[in-house]
């Protein structure tokens, strides 16, 4: 076997090493943790959107047999350290900082706001205890809409802010906005909105916190995208020294941006465990998830577009208002990303961007797969609206405006170079995959029969991780680290700060390291989810393909060099003549010299060597992202709209995607399809709905509808791998693109289908009832 080049794993759809446990029920999710003496927590939650809390009486709950502790917000506050939202602090937020407590004390600010926690011998008993907690409220007028929140007369959610402004108004201009608008042939005004919807991972939030009173140590079993970020949050709010705190995570049942850091509830559970001196588990139920875990995307955009008669998009002037919900978090930071990304791949001459963020009595804004996604929706919607006004083809207007691929690359108006962006290529690929003229003929025939078909196209780019620039391609999240070790069993172990929750890192990182080190795939293991052994890291922002793929590649190369250096000493050969393939070190040209890497590691562990021999077969690697780069692509949807029922069916969905070199095509395609499915859901089904009193109307899966197997079509995918930028790391992230671009793709197709009625669409949520309203409004005679 020695001397035969091992097959290359990178680039192949290697079957996932995660699957045998997942397919047999042997996965270990946070709710599967069971510790001796473990208690269960449940939360008393506000039934009102906005009210003063006059009193909280937990005495009856405490008296219930089986209840071990019942804590009000004030009691919990006495056990914890006040502080800002950990995520915002970590990201350097310098704007308004609302003062709030882990559980509501003075006020409740949304329906579902936690007010008290009951800890009991079972979840059933904890919920019984919650029924006995008496809370007196004094109603305040709810602030449910962003427009009311902007009114200086609206009652402030946070007394220390004095108003409901979470992100103060700001305006920036790129290029000469006034001149570009003055010189334009046409100026259009559109108001485009995106509705509130949310992550909905199949596993909600949860944790088990276990305080050891003797040692003074805390272990938290988390469901998280980063054990280290969770640790920072817990340490900060519980006042625990870092060395006494350990955060572990096993399998995580999805997240899509929701599970970053530790939520208020998780911090309360950790405090309750310390108070009780026993482990405490809390796993949210679906209603808690839907009303209280967090929501995203409720944003409005007033867009002015300066255009030439030929369809050149010259300038945009955009005013964004974001509804960040009740408590601080991601929302206030989103407009800055939207601003930076708004030009997309297009050669825009001027951009004015102003934004304001408001607080309202709704669930807090959280990151959701492509948190800045609204910019893609707005831009790609506006391009179609302009195309319709000018009588241009949607593909043509895009090709016309895409920045050309030049060397050096064109630079986005907002600053980043468009290095390696292949929007033009992906649009052209779409026109090869989809016969547009044939569709137009079919569409005309169908219309003659009273059947309404539409085609929509949209395109996107995604900084995954982004091009190299002054601050490096890795951007605000910094370098990626990895520790790699060759064990005496011949296993190459990768310790990564990535915390996979569906991304298949235990497979993909092993593929890369196996190839680079020279061992079979089965001889690489990937360790995640333990703050005591993994470096800092976070799975999110579509960064792991480049950043972690890159550090796995470079780290495996470093470890390989180290093993060869040591083996050279053992084998009395020159390191230059040694190679590792298929798990063996051997002298090139002499298969008989082969020694298994396991044997090399055993000799390293057993032997005593002079100071000149490094027998520690471990490396710590770091990667800055290399040349980085963009992911991107173009999507096309063909839909049929039943104008009698308003039901939209996606007949065909085609993707032309460029995420650089593929590590594992099946994993990449799974990410794309999953993102597209969420995007289709956002348009046709999903909405986090509130009534005028601030009651959440989408508190169950009967009301918050997510797509099923009957709603999502087959998704055809073509891969482009057009422009390698880096010497060896050209994998780019692909997690968010589907969710970024599917909503405008589907909405564009629906508008095209409804063109005979003159329908224009300025929103994203188009359930059947809304489709019928749009038709009726555009064509009252119908």
């Amino acid at each position, binding site marked *: 076997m020695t001397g035969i080049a091992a097959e290359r794993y990178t680039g*192949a*759809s*290697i*079957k*996932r*090493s*995660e*699957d*045998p*446990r*997942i*397919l*047999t*029920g*042997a*996965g*270990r*999710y946070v*709710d*599967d943790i*069971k510790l001796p003496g473990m208690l269960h927590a449940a939360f008393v939650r506000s039934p009102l959107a906005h009210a003063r809390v006059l009193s909280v009486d937990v005495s009856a709950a405490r008296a219930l047999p089986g209840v071990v502790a019942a804590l009000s917000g004030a009691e919990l506050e006495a056990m914890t350290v006040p502080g800002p939202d950990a995520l915002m602090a970590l990201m350097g937020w310098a704007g308004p900082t609302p003062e709030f407590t882990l559980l509501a004390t003075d006020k409740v600010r949304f329906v579902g706001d936690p007010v008290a926690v009951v800890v009991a011998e*079972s979840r*059933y008993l904890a919920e019984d205890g919650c029924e006995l907690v008496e809370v007196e409220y004094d109603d305040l007028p709810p602030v449910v809409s962003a427009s009311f929140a902007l009114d200086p007369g609206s009652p402030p959610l946070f007394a220390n802010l004095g108003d409901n402004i979470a992100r103060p108004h700001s305006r920036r201009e790129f290029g000469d906005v006034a001149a570009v608008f003055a010189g334009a042939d046409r100026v259009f005004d559109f108001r485009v909105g995106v509705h509130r919807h949310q992550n*909905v*991972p*199949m*596993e909600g939030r949860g944790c088990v916190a276990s305080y050891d009173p003797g040692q003074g140590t805390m272990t938290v079993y988390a469901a998280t995208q980063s054990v280290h970020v969770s640790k920072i949050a817990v340490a900060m709010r519980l006042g625990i020294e870092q060395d006494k705190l350990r955060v572990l995570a096993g*399998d*995580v*049942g*999805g997240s*899509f941006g929701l599970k970053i850091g530790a939520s208020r509830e998780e911090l309360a559970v950790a405090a309750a465990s310390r108070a009780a001196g026993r482990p405490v588990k809390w796993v949210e*139920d*679906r209603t808690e998830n839907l009303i209280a875990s967090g929501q995203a995307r409720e944003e409005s955009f007033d867009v002015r577009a300066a255009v030439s008669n030929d369809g050149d998009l010259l300038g945009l002037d955009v005013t964004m208002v974001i509804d960040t919900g009740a408590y601080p978090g991601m929302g206030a930071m989103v407009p800055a990303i939207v601003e930076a990304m708004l030009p997309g791949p297009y050669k825009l001459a001027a951009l004015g961007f102003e934004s304001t963020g408001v607080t309202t009595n709704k669930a807090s804004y959280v990151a959701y797969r492509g948190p800045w996604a609204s910019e893609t929706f707005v831009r790609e919607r506006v391009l179609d609206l302009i195309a319709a006004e000018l009588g241009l083809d949607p593909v043509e207007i895009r090709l016309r405006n895409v920045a050309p691929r030049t060397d050096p690359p064109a630079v986005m108006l907002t600053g980043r170079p468009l290095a390696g962006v292949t929007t033009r290529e992906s649009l052209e690929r779409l026109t090869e995959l989809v016969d547009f003229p044939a569709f137009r003929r079919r569409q005309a025939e169908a219309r003659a029969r009273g059947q309404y078909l539409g085609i929509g196209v949209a395109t996107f780019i995604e900084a995954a991780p982004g091009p190299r620039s002054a601050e490096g391609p890795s951007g605000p999240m910094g370098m990626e680290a990895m520790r790699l070790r060759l064990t005496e069993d011949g296993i190459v172990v990768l310790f990564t700060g990535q915390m996979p929750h*569906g*991304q*298949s890192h235990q497979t993909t990182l092993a593929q890369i390291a196996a190839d680079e080190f020279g061992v079979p*795939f*089965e001889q690489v293991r990937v360790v995640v989810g333990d703050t005591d052994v993994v470096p800092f890291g976070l799975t999110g922002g579509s960064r792991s393909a480049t950043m972690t793929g890159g550090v796995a590649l470079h780290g495996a190369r470093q470890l390989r060099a180290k093993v060869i250096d040591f083996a050279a000493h053992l084998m009395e050969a020159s390191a230059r003549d040694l190679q590792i393939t298929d798990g063996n070190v051997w002298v090139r040209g002499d298969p008989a010299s082969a020694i298994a890497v396991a044997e090399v590691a055993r000799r390293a562990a057993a032997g005593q060597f002079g100071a000149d021999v490094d027998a520690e077969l471990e490396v710590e690697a770091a990667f800055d992202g290399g040349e980085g780069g963009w992911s991107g692509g173009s999507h096309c949807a063909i839909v049929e709209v039943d104008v009698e029922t308003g039901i939209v069916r996606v007949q065909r969905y085609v993707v032309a995607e460029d995420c650089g070199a593929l590590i594992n*095509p*099946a*994993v990449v*395609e*799974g990410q794309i*399809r*999953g993102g*597209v*499915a969420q995007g289709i859901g956002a348009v046709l089904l999903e909405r986090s709905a509130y009534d005028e009193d601030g009651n959440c109307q989408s508190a*169950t*899966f*009967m009301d918050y509808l*997510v*797509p*099923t*197997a*009957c709603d*999502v079509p*087959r*998704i*055809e995918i073509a891969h482009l791998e057009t422009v390698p930028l880096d010497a060896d790391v050209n994998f780019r992230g692909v997690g968010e693109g589907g969710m970024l671009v599917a909503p405008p793709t589907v909405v564009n197709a629906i508008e095209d289908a409804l063109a005979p009625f003159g329908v224009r669409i300025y929103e994203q949520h188009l359930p059947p009832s809304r489709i019928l309203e749009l038709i009726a409004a555009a064509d009252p005679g119908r």
Partner: protein
Amino acid sequence: MDITLRVNGATRTGSPEARKTLADFLRDDLDLTGTHLGCEHGVCGACTVIVDGRAVRSCLMLAVQAAGCEVTTIEGLAADGELGTLQQALWDSHSFQCGFCTPGFVMQAVAFLGAHPDAGEQQIREALSGNICRCTGYESIIDGVLLAAQRSASPHPAAPTQAGPGRAAPANRER
């Protein structure tokens, strides 16, 4: 209330409170944590198990209602350590991502294929439309179930797959 039932071929006894769901009984009392809870109101299907041959949502059934029943959970499918035909086909098809919904899909599909071994894509989609997956967009799951149906039907099963990680079956992608 004392109950006796058969779970994955073994006789089990317990004394669940009357209000305890079958899902909680399986997970908490019998330590069968492969059955997952995704909504606890009967919509998402993650908790699906097979009771007396029928797929049921164990979050909507009380443990005491399962007294005397034959219950199969995800842990009962590969009890001998070998993946079953469906599980193998799902692995080969890269069917899942985070894996949380997986046990429910597998149990629903086992029950469905048992009754409809010749089912085509549309029937499978409808049969699985009561199970929610948030990661995959379903195509890979449908492909896996179709592959299992095809392998079960074929007297000469399609190319045997490796026991360990290897190449996935070609994606059924182009039309």
